[in-house]
């Protein structure tokens, strides 16, 4: 026993009132380095021990604020800046929708970080030993007794006196606690092979479980019920329709809202005579006509309509749109060509709305005029 170093003297008390009285007595006797262990928080202990107000609250508050800021920034960056998505027509910075998440992250960071910093700062991680561990004293105070220890490091510490003092204020089982020599001498480091092995095992376990639950479990009964519904999925073979197509054409004769079927599919003459462009030259119409022309017509007809374009060599070159013939055709004639197509040129009826077709025609007219400017156009 001689070579062992004394850590503290402990005593057991039996009721919460006793331990509060004892704590007061210890403070009065002038001991500074002492501690109280109770199975649950005993109210009034802070005052009895004359503890200063714990800074933990401020600490947790600061962490909470950091958590809230980080959470908001994360959502702001992903949802508003990096990849803005339109969800239900909400703004890209939908604050009300962020509130629950921000709240969760605030609480999470405040609580987790508080616990982690307690482990690091007070328990001096990776240290995992304390002389009070594994003592009879610890066993008792973590079930139904209340304990008090006076540490040898206290300036007023005197072994015999402290023992007498503790019995005098009503403590039972007064005991001396020594450091465990093995524990003091063993040097635990983070690179301990055992620790690293444990870490590796845990990592593998976590990865396996995560992989399993995300990639396998979710596809098992009953988790897949939501996914495997009896509904048509685009691009999947249909077992319901005979031809195996999931994507269906509308029923014959279906007319979309606001859409008028084209009345002269077989007659260019009629179309060129009857149809009149309902639109006028305007910035909006030309702008939109240009957009549609560049998208749908320019691959073959070129941006300026001269007929030699990006598809040159892979598709018969169309004639120039600047010939006198085309210039003299009525808008109705062009409308017919776009709607029905002409020889090798396919129909663009499905790609363009009726209004857009007229806008494209206005733009083609503008192109034609640009190559054949007349005097007075500048005015």
């Amino acid at each position: 026993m001689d070579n062992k170093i004394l850590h503290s003297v402990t005593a057991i008390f039996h009721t919460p009132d006793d331990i509060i009285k004892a704590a007061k007595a210890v403070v009065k006797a002038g001991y500074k380095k002492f501690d109280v262990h109770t199975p649950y928080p005993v109210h009034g202990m802070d005052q009895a021990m004359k503890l200063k107000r714990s800074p933990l609250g401020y600490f947790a508050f600061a962490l909470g604020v950091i958590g809230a800021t980080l959470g908001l920034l994360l959502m702001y960056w992903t949802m508003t800046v990096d990849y803005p998505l339109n969800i239900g027509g909400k703004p890209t910075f939908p604050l009300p929708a962020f509130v629950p998440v921000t709240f969760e992250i605030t609480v999470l960071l405040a609580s987790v970080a508080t616990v982690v910093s307690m482990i690091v700062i007070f328990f001096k991680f990776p240290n995992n030993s304390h002389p009070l561990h594994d003592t009879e004293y610890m066993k008792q105070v973590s079930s139904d007794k209340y304990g008090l220890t006076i540490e040898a490091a206290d300036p007023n510490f005197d072994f015999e006196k402290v023992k007498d003092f503790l019995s005098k204020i009503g403590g039972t089982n007064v005991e001396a606690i020594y450091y465990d020599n093995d524990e003091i001498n063993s040097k635990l480091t983070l690179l301990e092979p055992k620790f690293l092995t444990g870490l590796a095992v845990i990592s593998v376990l976590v990865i396996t479980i995560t992989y399993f639950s995300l990639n396998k479990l979710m596809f098992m009964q009953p988790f897949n019920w939501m996914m495997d519904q009896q509904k048509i999925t685009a691009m999947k073979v249909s077992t319901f329709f005979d031809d195996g197509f999931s994507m269906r054409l509308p029923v014959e004769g279906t007319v979309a809202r606001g859409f008028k079927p084209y009345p002269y599919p077989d007659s260019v003459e009629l179309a060129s005579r009857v149809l009149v462009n309902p639109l006028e030259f305007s910035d909006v119409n030309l702008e939109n006509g240009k957009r549609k022309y560049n998208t749908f017509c320019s691959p073959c007809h070129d941006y300026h309509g001269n007929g030699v374009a990006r598809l040159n060599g892979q598709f018969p070159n169309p004639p120039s749109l600047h010939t006198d013939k085309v210039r003299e055709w009525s808008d109705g004639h062009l409308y017919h060509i776009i709607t029905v197509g002409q020889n090798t040129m396919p129909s663009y009826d499905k790609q363009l709305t009726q209004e857009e077709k007229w806008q494209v025609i206005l733009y083609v007219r503008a192109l034609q005029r640009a190559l054949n400017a007349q005097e007075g156009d500048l005015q």
Partner: protein
Amino acid sequence: MSNDNIVLYERKPLPTKLPLLGWSLLLIGVVLTFLAFSTDNVRASYNLIIVLMWVFSIGFGSLFLIALEHIVGSDWSVPFRRLSEILAAVLFATPLIALPLFLNLDQVFSWLNPVILDSDKYVKNKSPYLNESFFVIRNIFVFLVMFLFYFLLVGRSLRQDKTGKADTKKWSTKISAIFMPIFAILITVVAMDWLMSLEPKWFSTIFGVYYFAGSVLTALAVLTFIAITLAENGYISKYLTEDHFYNFGALMFAFTNFWAYIAFSQFMLIWYANIPDETMWYMQRGGEGWMTISLGLIFIRFLIPYMALVTRPSKSNPFRLKIIAVWVFIAHYYDLYWVIMPEYTKKTELHAPVYSWFEFTVPILVLGVIIVVFSLVAGKKNLMPIGDPKFRKGLEFHL
């Protein structure tokens, strides 16, 4: 305190100034209300609804606090139960306040308006519930049930002062357990009838809880203020400690958070679903001057009380608690104003928030009612339940 000869509580008559103050406030309030009704009975009716709902909150909230104590068997609140019991008596003022409203139902409730009934099938479809006779019957029923439970819960407790019978506790616990679900339904009916149906097309299933959260908070605030003031001036036991008051602070803190939680849940779900039938209520409160009031609600009803109550010392310091209690009490007025008045301004040319002597009558009348009822009821009674076997235990309470 183990010595039985020590007097735990000695009755001390309330100052005579108190009834005087109460009656004069009440008189001013009543005169102003009459004046208001003769000037503009629509606006006066809306303001009277605020009065009604405010007083309801205090009475109903106090009844809830009494029942809660019996059900959970708490010790700390026993010394204050009598104050809640006295405060719950303001419920008897509610039919009187509601009387002018019953006579003016068609001025405030558009579900009575034949033009709207004809043109709006959503309102018409609700008419089996929202019609004049059922409204009146149901609210009279609510009053009666409230009075019944008031007598059941409070009567025995008063008699216990003399008899000191211990089995009162058992009876009260049973009655409280029966009361709780009924209370939940009644307060929902009240909130739906007087607040939600002001806009008959709008509905929110959480609305009853919203009103409940604010009500309990208000009842707590009034109780806290009265208890601390009485304790400071020696009208109730001198053995009350900071630990007792800490509980008031903690409960107010909890219900402040609860209110914010409910208010936000209601807002977020409606905002998210974005259905015109539901968003209309918030759109009304988001435009033409109301937006400022709406944003202010977040601060006045949640952030400021939250910050004021979050630390431990502020929960146990009686002086600070008193200030916070006053704040919370007024915040409930703000909340009710925010719920009720946009429905009035919607009808006027202005649309923007209004505040003048019409609105100022509300707090005068409410204070008058509280002080008059308190001095009337408390005058003849002990201010603490001295017959309760748990009374001593409650006084000895430590955190």
